[in-house]
């Protein structure tokens, strides 16, 4: 999955972090445009929860919001690690080969989670405190699958991509809780200015390619 851009939006809808990772249409927008995009996403997210069809709302209890754990999303492959001669990755205040190793339940039940267009796909991960992590990927989920099963394939690959994105964004959340929350020079709800956070996010995005 090739991630183009990562955005972090605080609970009031303000953009606190934005980084482009490759030359693409996204980098033609300036920072002001991104501020506008962030607040638009924030509002559309809220509207989406109201738009859920009544029929689906009634079956809400039966929907499983569990996201399975997909190992080593965004982590350096062990081959690379051994080559560098540093077998133990330092994960800040987390220990072990990965930030977490279980499946988890998504907090985002009725809001917007994924937006697929013919140019890009956007994934949103919202935390219980209202913080939103948005990833824009250049992978396009194709709408045409000519197989015997027809549309089933599309759902499967879309599901997998969505799970990978959720796993990935939760790890970005872990990195955020380390390098931004534990920084005494960061004021809450303000734009993030930490280069270590930047570096870690860039590493993870590169590992995802």
């Amino acid at each position, binding site marked *: 999955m090739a991630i183009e851009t990562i955005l972090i939006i605080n*609970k009031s809808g303000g953009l606190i972090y934005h980084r482009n990772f490759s030359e693409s249409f996204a980098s033609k927008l300036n920072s002001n445009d991104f501020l506008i995009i962030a607040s638009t996403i924030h509002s559309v*997210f*809220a509207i*989406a*929860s109201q738009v859920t069809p009544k029929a689906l709302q009634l079956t809400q209890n039966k*929907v*499983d*919001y*569990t996201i*399975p*754990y*997909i*190992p080593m999303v965004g982590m350096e492959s062990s081959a690379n690690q051994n080559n560098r001669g540093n077998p133990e990755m330092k*994960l*800040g*205040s*987390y*220990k*072990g080969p990965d*930030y*977490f*190793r*279980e*499946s*988890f*339940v998504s*907090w*985002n*039940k*009725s*809001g*917007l*989670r*994924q*937006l*697929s267009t013919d140019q890009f796909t956007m994934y949103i991960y*919202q*935390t*219980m*405190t*209202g*913080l939103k992590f948005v990833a824009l990927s250049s992978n396009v*989920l194709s709408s045409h699958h000519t197989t015997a099963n027809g549309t089933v394939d599309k*759902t*499967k690959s*879309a*599901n*997998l991509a*969505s*799970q990978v994105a959720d796993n990935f964004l*939760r790890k970005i*959340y*872990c990195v*955020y*809780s*380390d390098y931004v*929350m*534990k920084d005494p020079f960061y004021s*809450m709800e303000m734009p993030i200015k930490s280069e270590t956070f930047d570096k870690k996010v860039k590493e993870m995005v590169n590992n995802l390619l």
Partner: protein
Amino acid sequence: MSRPVSTISGQSGLSSSGSGAPLGGQGRSLKATGDDIWKNKTEKINAELFTLTYGAIVSQLCEDYDRDFAKINDQLFQMGYNIGVRLIEDFLARTALPRCEDMVRTSEVISKCAFKVFLNISPKVTNWSANKEAFSLVINDNPLSDFVELPMDAMKGLWYSNVLCGVLKGALEMVQLDCDVAFVSDILRGDQLTEIKIKLNRVLKDEIPIGED
């Protein structure tokens, strides 16, 4: 807009390898979750350094505020509050526990998971109020107050570990639970137990992030 509408199984070799049930779900108790995260997934550091650092902070505060213990208690609470609003993000990123339905569940998460993951202690939950919205946490072996003895004047006015109350208040407020958190008794002051009372005032319904229900 695609959402998984069925349980994902047999998707590909990648999913659910070595994962087990989600944390806090039916498959795993909160206690097992907390223990597992403490043992395998957190970096640790010498607790005595923690105790000594906190001691340096409190004694410096005593000097700065000229032993006005009411102000020192407030300052400790405020510092704890600032820590709490950040600590909740760390806790949620680490455990990804779903929202608690009621205070009973909240008390379990706090005592079995949160304290275990951060401080490696397991306080007990006691003294439930009639409407199940207030409870007390009884803490044994508080790492902040190891080897600490209060001088006579502080014994009457200072809540040494008041930072814990601030942390709890800040963290709960970020998950939209407005609570009153305060010390009831403290071993350092000569009481039998160290007890913190947590009382829910109201759920901040309008601040619950959209999309959660």
